[in-house]
């Protein structure tokens, strides 16, 4: 059974039917938003059952769309939080990515701007490495990008998608060693992205992110995870009721190979490790429970089956 990420949009009336159906089919609901009278569900569902969900939701005027970014956490790396980059383009891109189901965090560098003075500190590096992918939003000049990129990528282990002002072939030429994805002609601009050509550019960014994530998904599939992060989310939700009191929009953030649990590490880490995922298999055996560099959250990294010799 392969689970595919989809978004369900429909009215609030009888939406629990859909939730029950997805859960009965063996799918997982990652996020649920209720906006006025509309419900948006971001979920993983079995590929072969999408048509069934469509059929059941038809009388409720619900629609099911593919959203390849559900279940990923993306770092939008902005060079600073100054007016030069905010709200356009950093927020525009972060918001667009979120619309397609990803959980995007904006990581702004303390000393990102400039050419010679640009730098990346250890906290920023670790925070970026906690994500599935990093989208670097750089400026308009190839000289600057070429000069500062080696500094900004030092120690980054996650795939990087680079957005910059110069054309895509110029970016490819100046970045050495190459990064995983490039989007050209998206540098610094001071206007809202609302025209058709600007939205096309946004779609191009999404396409590039999706392509890079697919590659990462394929490499994970070669050595499958011991447990699906979405399933782990359900287990934690059930066994740690304190998570229900967290006011953050996504108390449990699902990543491709892990989970961010927004509870304090010192208090809950040991309890998390002891949670039984299945009979006699504690969470600590199939995943690492690590302190996150983001506030005092917990980062759960699911181990591949080659290390644990089990898939639950």
């Amino acid at each position, binding site marked *: 059974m392969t689970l595919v990420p989809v978004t369900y949009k429909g009215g609030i009336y009888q939406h629990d039917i859909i939730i029950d159906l997805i859960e009965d089919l063996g799918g997982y609901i990652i996020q649920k938003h209720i906006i006025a009278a509309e419900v948006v569900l971001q979920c993983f569902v079995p590929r072969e059952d999408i048509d069934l969900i469509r059929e059941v939701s038809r009388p409720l005027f619900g629609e099911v769309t593919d959203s390849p970014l559900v279940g990923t956490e993306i770092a939008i790396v902005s*060079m*600073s939080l*100054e*007016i*030069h*980059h905010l709200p356009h383009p950093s927020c525009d891109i972060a918001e667009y990515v979120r619309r397609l189901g990803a959980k995007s965090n904006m990581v702004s560098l303390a000393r990102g*701007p*400039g*050419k*010679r*003075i*640009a730098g990346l500190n250890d906290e920023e590096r670790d925070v970026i490495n906690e994500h599935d992918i990093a989208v670097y939003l750089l*400026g*308009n*000049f*190839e*000289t*600057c990008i070429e000069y500062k990129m080696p500094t900004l990528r030092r120690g980054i282990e996650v795939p990087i998608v680079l957005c910059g*002002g*110069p*054309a895509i072939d110029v970016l490819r030429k100046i970045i050495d060693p190459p990064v995983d994805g490039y989007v050209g002609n998206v*540098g*610094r*601009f*001071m*206007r809202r992205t609302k025209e058709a050509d600007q939205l096309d550019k946004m779609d191009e960014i999404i396409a590039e992110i999706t392509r890079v994530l697919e590659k990462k998904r394929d490499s994970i599939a070669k050595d499958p995870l011991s447990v699906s992060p979405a399933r782990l989310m359900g287990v934690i939700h059930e066994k740690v009721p304190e998570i229900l009191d967290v006011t953050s929009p996504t108390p449990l953030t699902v990543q491709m190979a892990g989970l961010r649990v927004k509870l304090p590490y010192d208090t809950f880490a040991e309890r998390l490790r002891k949670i039984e995922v299945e009979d006699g298999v504690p969470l600590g055996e199939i995943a690492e429970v690590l302190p996150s560099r983001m506030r005092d959250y917990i980062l759960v990294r699911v181990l591949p089956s080659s290390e644990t010799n089990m898939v639950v």
Partner: protein
Amino acid sequence: MLAIEYFEVECPEPLGAEYYRQITNDVLLDHNLLKVVSKLHVFIDPKVPVFIATGILRKITTVVRVGDFANVNPQEGKMTLVISEETYLAPMLKIFWQRFGKEKVEQPDRFTVILYDVPAQPREIEEIVVADPSESLHKDLIYAFRCIAPEGFRLRTEIFSKEKFIFVASENTLAEDIGGVVREKFALMGEVPP
């Protein structure tokens, strides 16, 4: 861009120049400053790196008077002012308080001000100067150019006179001969530096 007689962005990277032309236009438009600049030459060299903006300012002679945004209706023993735009309401009240005293000025709601027994003719009231937009002009221009200049260019030198301005920024110490470059940029516009 009709208001500007001369507008050039010069940069060794043609694509970069195009982007910065757009950014300059957007920022000046957002800050409502296009009408005060008549000529503008921006030079950016990311290799140095340096950002130079030179330009000529238009003369702004208009000052804002009470009559521009309020109707003065004289009545017996009092004068009612009907405000059409709130922007200059606060400075206007301040002037009234200073001139007539707080007890003679009343503001029953947002758009009405009543003056009781003031020793002035309605005509005089209408002529009172409330604000001078040119006072904050240089401040606004400097802020706009800080937005336009690439980020991280924190070492700056600015000269803003009544008619001309120079804004130079870099992340490195500015070269001593920067005046020569500035002069060249003014020459391109057919002007001399202030």
